[in-house]
Every structure is written in structure tokens, then in C-alpha cells.
């Protein structure tokens, strides 16, 4: 679903949460199975998607990470503006 050509904030965040969970869990599996090629390829793919989604989210709705804090090309520090995750409207 998209709003004015932008991906919906909630949908994008749900996707970020899903791929991030996949990155964390496959990463921890790889800690004890470092030569599992299937798991390694899965990790690379999920991590690639996660990076793209985080950059896309930052460009429309503000950064979720400091690495993507430059994505919105703004003249102000947006890190403090969007709600924190425990707040109303947060992630």
C-alpha cells in the first residue's frame, strides 16, 4: 500500500522489523554454523533488503539508525523529532 507514491509508514516498518529479525536470528545461527552456505546466502539477502528499507524509511519518515540519518537531506537534526519507540506513534 502506498500514500502519494510513498510506501505506507506502518507497512514499511513492519517489513523492516521482519527482515531485521531474520538478520538477527540467522546471524546468531551463523555464530555456531559459520560454514553453512545456505544460511550465509540467506543472511546476505536479508541484510541487503534491510539496508535498502532503512534508507527508504529514513528518506520519507526520518532515520531509525545513525547510519541512515543523512538520508533525508534536511538542514536540521531529525533524530530528535520522530517519536521514540515506546511513545505514541513510535516504532
Amino acid at each position: 500500500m502506498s500514500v502519494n507514491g510513498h510506501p505506507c509508514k506502518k507497512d514499511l516498518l513492519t517489513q523492516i522489523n521482519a527482515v531485521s529479525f531474520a538478520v538477527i536470528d540467522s546471524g546468531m545461527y551463523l555464530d555456531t554454523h559459520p560454514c553453512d552456505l545456505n544460511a550465509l546466502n540467506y543472511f546476505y539477502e536479508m541484510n541487503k533488503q534491510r539496508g535498502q528499507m532503512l534508507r527508504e524509511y529514513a528518506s520519507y519518515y526520518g532515520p531509525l539508525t545513525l547510519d541512515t540519518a543523512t538520508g533525508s537531506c534536511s538542514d536540521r537534526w531529525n533524530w530528535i523529532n520522530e517519536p521514540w519507540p515506546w511513545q505514541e506513534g513510535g516504532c
Partner: protein
Amino acid sequence: MWNYEKRLEFPVKISETNAQLAQAIATQYGGPDGESGAAMRYLSQRFAMPYKEAIAVLNDVGTEELGHAEIVCSIVRQLTRDLSVAEIKESGFDKYYVDHTTGIYPINASGVPFDAMTFQSTGDPLTDLHEDLAADGATL
């Protein structure tokens, strides 16, 4: 070193407050089998771990436990939003409220503050791993 992500590992959206439930859930932040203890346990034990696979697991699981602590705190925060005086008294939340109001403070279910005595870091990898199994088994 850690990097913060401005999102919860799993989202929390609570529409109905419940101060009694908040007290039961708060122990998962500051209690003997809570996320704070788990994070400190793994992040402390990793320094003495000699095996690279196990160092990585302690490091990455310990890191994730910090994210779990943040989820639990968010649940407690949202469960205690906009409470009336009557709700605070009737739910038994008044004992917590008098010291901390609706601030987040790590305690167990009976109100005892978080204590590092709830976990061990012995410097012996097998002993520490047994302690980890016992600790995480307690929450299953």
C-alpha cells in the same frame, strides 16, 4: 560498542492500561530471570569465553537481551499511562508509585530492586554455560 536503532525489536501498542499487570511484567525487566540480568550475564561472561563461536553467541544474544529489556519497559510504560489516583490505589501500584511515580525502575515482582547477585560470571566457561542454561530455562 553499540549502535541504537529507533524501533523496538517487536512493536508494542497497548490501548488499555492495567497497573496490576504492569507490576507482574516489570519483573521481566528487573527481576531474577529478567532481561537486564540476562544482558549483564552474557555480556559479562563473554570476556572469559575461549571459543570463538561461543564468544559470538554470548555477544550477540547479550546484545539482543538489551532490545528485549526495551520491549518490556515499553509495555510497562504503556500499561501505566494516564492512571487515576483510584486506579493506582486499587491495583496495588501505590507502593511503586510513591517512590518512582510512573518512571521505569528495575525491580522484581515483590518490589526488590535489580541485584547482580541474581547471576554469576565465574571465569570458567563450562560453569558459566551451565548457569546460562539454568537461567534461560527458568523463563521457558
